[in-house]
């Protein structure tokens, strides 16, 4: 049913129009700013002048940029591994649970998933609050007296940990529910025959479950990579990338440079490089996608 008429193009026209005006155009403006001398004065008065690649040169020469980039990779890796690992475990668990327990667990997952980011971040601020927070109180009650009034948000490592906990807690539901949905499509007979062949649990997962769900794992992983890499509100609201820049990832860095230091030019350069890094990291996935779609569905 190859359509040779105009219909498909008419159907995608609104999407394309929206994309051009509200995404591509601003993106081009951002790209332009990244090769200009564009600071508070230019924002207010206009009349920015081109400076070529000066901003990129300045950025790549700054130690901080490389430290931030490295940290962003670490941040993404830790979170994505935890999210995919935990949600796989939860999905497998869901598949084995009795009906009532499964519905209960799925409802809770849905509840967490639907909790707005800002509300969730506020909740975590409260949980880890130094004097009245429940986490410190529980730890003290368990005999860890050093946590009396402990400031979780003062130490880089601890802050990083709290943020990972927050992001993983928020991300597991979507990944787990999606993977569980995938699990339910695997015919039971496949498992039967694998078990008859004497496979253990992990072997069955490696030989049957994973290969079948490979595209889904790829999708979930790449979506999580994008989301975690770009994660901004949680980090910003909790500690503005601090303490001492310990939780400053690329998006936070771009925001800080642009909005706090009024170096809009440099901030745009950071953003352009961020997109480039992300595109390279996901290039394989995108190429595979293009190939598949090219072959038709």
């Amino acid at each position, binding site marked *: 049913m190859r*359509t040779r008429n105009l219909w*498909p193009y008419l159907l995608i026209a609104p999407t394309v129009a929206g994309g051009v005006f509200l995404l591509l155009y*601003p993106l081009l403006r951002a790209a332009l700013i990244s090769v200009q001398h564009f600071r508070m004065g230019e924002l207010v008065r206009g009349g920015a002048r081109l400076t070529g690649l000066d901003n990129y040169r300045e950025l790549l020469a700054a130690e901080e940029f490389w430290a931030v980039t490295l940290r962003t990779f670490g941040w993404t890796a830790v979170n994505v591994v935890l999210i995919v690992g935990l949600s796989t475990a939860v999905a497998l668990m869901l598949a084995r649970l009795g009906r009532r*327990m499964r519905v*209960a667990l799925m409802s809770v997952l849905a509840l967490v998933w639907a*909790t707005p980011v800002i509300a969730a971040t506020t909740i975590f601020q409260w949980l880890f609050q130094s004097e009245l927070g429940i986490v410190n109180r529980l730890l003290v009650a368990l005999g860890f007296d050093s946590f009396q009034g402990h400031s979780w948000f003062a130490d880089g490592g601890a802050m990083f940990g709290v943020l990972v906990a927050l992001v993983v807690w928020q991300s597991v539901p979507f990944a787990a529910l999606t993977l569980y949905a995938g699990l339910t499509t695997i015919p039971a007979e496949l498992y039967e025959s694998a078990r008859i062949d004497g496979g253990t649990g992990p072997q069955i997962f490696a030989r049957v479950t994973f290969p079948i769900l490979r595209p889904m794992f790829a999708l979930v992983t790449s979506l999580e990579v994008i989301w975690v890499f770009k994660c901004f509100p949680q980090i910003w609201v909790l500690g503005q990338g601090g303490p001492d820049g310990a939780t400053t990832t690329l998006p936070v860095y771009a*925001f800080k440079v642009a909005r706090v230091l009024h170096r809009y030019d440099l901030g745009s350069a950071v953003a352009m490089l961020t*997109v480039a890094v992300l595109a390279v990291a996901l290039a394989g996935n995108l190429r595979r996608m293009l190939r598949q779609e090219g072959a038709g569905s």
Partner: protein
Amino acid sequence: MRTLPAGRSRPAGTRPAGGRAGGGAPAGVPTGAARRRRAVRPGRIALNACAAAVLAVMAFPVYWMFATAFRPTAEIQAGTPGLWPAHPTLEHFAAAVAADGFWTFWRNSLAVTAAAVLLALTVALLSAVAVARMRWRGRGPFIVMVFAAQMAPWEALLVPMFVIARDTGLLDSLAMLTGVYFMITLPFTIVTLRGFLAAVPAELEEAALVDGCTRPAAFRRVIFPLLAPGLMATSLFGFVTAWNEFAFVNVLIIKDRDKRTLPVWLSSFRDVFGTDWGATMAAATLFALPVLVVFLFLQRRVGAGLTAGAVKG
């Protein structure tokens, strides 16, 4: 055409419609015998204990928000908080609702979010149809572009968006905000909707065409009803995203504070409530509530919808 799986026409809650997974017994509704047999297995108990632990850990932060919101201040500041509020109170909700501008912000948020989601759904549906049901030159690149659009560095577009809004006279305008949210949610909406659409057998549509329906009529009468759960599930994704956004509000709404939205208000809660964590948690509860309500309302459909949509991805 009558072989439609029951789970589609009337989604059976969180019960998957497809095959069953798992190494042990089937995970669907077990027979009485199976349940009894299972109950005595130690592995079963461990599994349920594990699930209960996961459930508790996941649910606790949200629960603690509710619990704090209902506790009197004295109880919040007491040395040892109990698991339940001993003397539940609504005073914090009263304080939150009475805070300056709460209802205005709430209304703005709702209006902007609803408009953005509806717009995104409509536009995405058109694209999803083109992608899932037709073949055309440029289809592959289009899909990849849509996927790639999810990588857009929105935080970096704050300044360009500000400049554009200023130069077109759209500062302090909810319309501009709606447009931005529409665009933020659109790529994901297309990707998901396309999944849902692909899960609806094409034969259904063809049969309708054979029966003399036009293509739009076939879509409206046959596909659309089947797609409803998918649309709802997708709208929820968009709703959550747009409901949360605050960076653009700060840039696009400058002078007219009556046009601010709820997340801005909540993220600056300290200025509003100071050390009053009870009121803060009440505010967070009120903020989360619309999403949770929509979710609970749609949950049965979403469960099934998620299954259908995610599989095709």
